[in-house]
């Protein structure tokens, strides 16, 4: 990559940040240059973020229909899946999967709930409810 080819596509994901890349100057010597982002990279980043957003939206519907516990929504809203949430809480995956059903979730002991509260950094109230639709909760 030559210095002139260092992409400056002003990626939204960077939020004004720039990253440093290695490229060659006109003499072929390596140096570093700042890049404001590359469109190709943006495409794949958006794809990954959108996949979690889609899971989150679908989970919200299932919670509203009474098919899932709010935990499923919060898991995806935190860009986690069952594996990551299990690792973060120390539960087994089959336990987490059970906790995603409303009947089991509603009977969880405060001690078990606390492990989720800690892993997701949420208050007991937040964990048991869905956030309002217009304020997507990402953290």
């Amino acid at each position, binding site marked *: 990559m030559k210095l002139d080819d260092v992409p400056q596509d002003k990626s939204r*994901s960077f939020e004004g940040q720039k990253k440093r890349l290695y490229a060659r100057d006109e003499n072929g010597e390596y140096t570093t240059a700042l890049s404001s982002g*590359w469109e*190709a990279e943006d495409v*794949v980043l958006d794809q990954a973020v959108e996949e979690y957003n889609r899971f989150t939206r679908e989970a919200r519907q299932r919670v509203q229909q009474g098919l899932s516990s709010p935990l499923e929504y919060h898991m995806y809203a935190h860009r986690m899946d069952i594996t990551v949430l299990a690792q973060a809480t120390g539960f087994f995956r089959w336990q987490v999967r059970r906790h995603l059903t409303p009947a089991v979730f509603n009977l969880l002991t405060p001690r078990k709930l606390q492990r989720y509260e800690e892993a997701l950094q949420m208050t007991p109230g937040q964990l048991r409810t869905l956030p309002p639709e217009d304020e997507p909760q990402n953290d």
Partner: protein
Amino acid sequence: MTDFNHQQTAHCESGAVAALLRHNGLDLSEPMVFGLSSALTYAYIPLVKMGGMPLLAYRMPPGRIIRGLSKRLGIRFHFERFRRPEDGTAALNKYLEQGTPVGLQASVYWLPYFPENMRFHFNAHNLVAYGKDGDDYLISDPTFEQPVRADTAALQRSRFVKGMLAPKGLIYYPEDISQAKDLTAAIPVAIRSTANMMLRTPLPFIGVRGIRHVARHMEKLSPANEHYNKLLIGHMVRMQEEIGTGGAGFRFLFASFLQESAGILSDERLAKAADQFTDAGDEWRRFALYAAKMLKGRSELDYDKLATQLRKVADMEQEGYQMLLALKSG
């Protein structure tokens, strides 16, 4: 307060290690740190899944750069991990009070200064803490332009997440750099190690064989699973291009290391090899470009075209590693 010379680098671990060494009086460039630790690789491990996607790596696992460099140069690093988060925070505070900047491992997701779209559950990010101001830690994060800050609760949280590559509050710093070996001896060993790994690892999914393995896998993707296939292709490009690769899956970083080594060893052949890996890096970028166009729907989803491009990269890299192995006999 400790003065710390913040420099933005392409990759977090090589950047943090280079920064700590520089602070202690050993000035090595980021590409030199990356190359000396033989950190370049290609690995595709379908058995290990991350977020439903096979593990794909263009560099060695986290921790390799620190360990590899200490082995090659004979520099001792001090490592500490903690069972209890409070102990980890207390130890960090103690080092900062003594005026010792330290390297930390942390989760990207819980670091407050990361842009929203960059926050994923990657637990092996590296950064340097060099001071404290009230409740804020002063942080030199190698992937950011300026020094940043994180409050005590957030930093402790991100240093003690559980799960894959859990940091367990890792703190590290170079202990003794006075015995650092000569670069002229260390460079050839490091280069040979990388070339051997990429050409001679007896596993079909590591090194140049790994690239060809993925090319075959691309051709065999069933058009019926288009959604998953697109995610997989996006995942490949993300691992290749996201912050901390220097672009093109670390290949430019490696080429820069070869070029610097050519100067140190006065060996024209290394400069030629640097050209070769620059070209390979450019072809990796072309792969990313094709993939992004297909994902956006601007060109037709063509698995064969992607496979062909991967084979082209594999051929160029193979030639490059062979050039590097031939150095020994010269």
